[in-house]
């Protein structure tokens, strides 16, 4: 039963780097929030401030209402899992887990019981006597997770814990961590720069850029309704087309769609799966550049008339050949101006049909 509140927290490093800039976030009890952003966007710095390893330059953090802004890490009810496991190599697995409990003067029998239970939980039952250097990378990260969990922290913090593992293992551990988190209902902050990790694990995603929040939302909303072109480009694959709007029609080099916004420059965003292609000979809006067959679907790389590259997902890649002319029929679009979402909507056949009339 723990909530984390972060209010207007900033961190300016001595060199002058503003790593985190007036950041605010409330994490609800039992919630898993992912901090997602490119490298250098301040995710680790924020997490380390919650863990107590960096002191905020300004702002305040509370856990269950208690101000923890200036509490040293050893007295915070947080548990951190580091990017490289950071296990103590001079201790075996059991001792790594027992260390925190010993410091809390827990009775030996109780320590043994709790350590074994947690090892069981992370799927390493019976590994207590192993040296940590004998474990594989994935097992080491599980021990690191267990080491935090055994102390039953109020807030669990993970900083790109799977970054050094291969894709396969990463996906498996991702699911395991999510399972454990939901079983224990532990409030969790998870740092990652991988969008699929965030999309598959998070209750909510915080997209960060240059120490600031770009968007905080549920994964499906972040995916479907990115609030800025940055978020749109960062989550999933997104076609971003720079063009101009005149009389309610967005156009760019022969390609045009109705967008009901005021005249001026705009960026249109279309997911590849929301872009329908049809072969066209006369009024082609683009040209097929390359077709990739993924088995379940195909991806068509195409060029607009001014060589702008965009992608479209198709169910029958065999229908398209490089060099062919195609007409574009977007089913859902979003438009941005000055980094702000100004329009978002599905294009029903009737609306799309308007393009034809205007074009004509």
């Amino acid at each position, binding site marked *: 039963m723990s909530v984390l509140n972060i209010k207007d927290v900033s961190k300016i490093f001595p060199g002058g780097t503003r790593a985190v800039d007036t950041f605010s976030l409330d994490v609800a009890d039992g919630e898993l929030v992912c901090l997602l952003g490119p490298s250098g966007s301040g995710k680790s710095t924020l997490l380390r401030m919650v863990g107590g390893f960096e002191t905020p330059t300004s702002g305040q953090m509370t856990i269950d209402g208690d101000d923890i802004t200036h509490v040293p890490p050893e007295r915070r009810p947080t548990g951190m899992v580091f990017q490289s496991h950071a296990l103590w190599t001079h201790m075996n697995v059991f001792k790594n887990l027992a260390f925190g409990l010993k*410091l809390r003067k827990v009775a030996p029998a109780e320590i043994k019981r709790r350590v074994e239970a947690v090892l069981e939980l992370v799927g390493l039952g019976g590994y207590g006597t192993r040296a940590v250097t004998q474990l594989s990378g994935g097992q080491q990260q599980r021990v690191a997770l267990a080491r935090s969990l055994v102390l039953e922290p109020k807030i669990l913090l993970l900083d790109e814990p799977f970054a050094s593992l291969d894709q396969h293992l990463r996906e498996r551990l991702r699911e395991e961590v999510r399972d454990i988190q939901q079983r224990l209902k532990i409030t969790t902050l998870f740092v990652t720069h991988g969008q699929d990790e965030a999309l598959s694990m998070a209750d909510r995603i915080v997209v960060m850029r240059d120490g600031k929040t770009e968007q905080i939302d549920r994964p499906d909303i972040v995916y479907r309704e990115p609030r800025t072109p940055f978020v749109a480009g960062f989550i999933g694959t997104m076609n971003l087309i720079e063009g101009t709007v005149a009389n309610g029609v967005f156009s760019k080099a022969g390609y045009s769609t109705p967008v009901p916004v005021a005249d001026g420059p705009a960026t249109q965003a279309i997911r590849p799966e929301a872009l329908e292609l049809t072969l066209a000979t006369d009024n082609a809006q683009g040209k097929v550049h390359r077709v990739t067959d993924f088995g379940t679907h195909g991806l068509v790389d195409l060029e607009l008339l001014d060589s702008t590259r965009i992608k479209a997902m198709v169910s029958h890649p065999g229908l398209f050949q490089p060099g062919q002319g195609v007409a574009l029929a977007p089913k859902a679009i979003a438009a941005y101006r000055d980094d702000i979402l100004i329009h978002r909507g599905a294009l029903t056949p009737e609306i799309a049909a308007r393009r034809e009339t205007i074009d004509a």
Partner: protein
Amino acid sequence: MTTDTAGSVSPVQPHRGRPIGLLLVAVPVLMVVWLIIWPIISAVITTLWVKTPEGDIFSIETYRFFFSDGYSLSNLGMTLWTTGVCAILLLVVCLPIALYLRFADSRIAAYVQGLAIFPMFVPSIILSFAFIRVLGPNGTVDLVLNAVGMPKIRSPYLTPWGPVIGLVWDNIPLTVLILLSGLGSVSNQAIEAARDVGAGKIAVLWHIILPRISNSILVAISFAVLGIFSAFTLPYVLGPAAPEMMGPFMQRTFRELFEPQTAITQAVVTFAFCIVFGLFYVYSVAKNRAP
């Protein structure tokens, strides 16, 4: 043609390489035998074959004398005491310095490091002279205390503490450097993880840092002990006339008393102690590395 040359050249190389390799190994081995092993053996032989009017006979008389002579034994005891006290003081002084240098990220750390390494570049004889000027009778400390009206302190000059102070100062750089290299292998994340599970500064030092640098401590102390045990200049200049450390003792026995065989016996005893330290060191390092 190309295959021919390739085929004929490659088998030749090992034959040509082997003598060169052996030669490369042989040079240092011969040097060690000539300059170290042989002098030791000849020294031991010299002390065991005593010249008598009837010719050379085998005898352990020189060693019997050394270990029954009160003066020799008190010199040996003095040497052991000085070495032990220096080893403890070095750890007490150097560990905090090394910890500070490893974990401080202020600009002052660079100056502290420079200061800690500085004694390495100062010859012992100049160090001794500086010691006398500062801590000796009528030295700087005396003058300052006198000027502010404080009572005179007893100068450590020519007492057993003279060599201790000098030797500790002289050995700080190497000890700090070795400890520092050991601390380099303790990752920040390992320490942060310890603090995360509730370890305060003392617990981190005791449970995380010290176990990880135990080998470095062992190496540092062994180097210091081996150097200090047979030190000459500092004990000679700064120490008391009697009892004296083994270094000056040997020198005086050889040069002033003209008793080369007794001096060599003292040298062999000194060497034996150093060997024991050395073996203990090798044993501990091997034991620490085993698991």
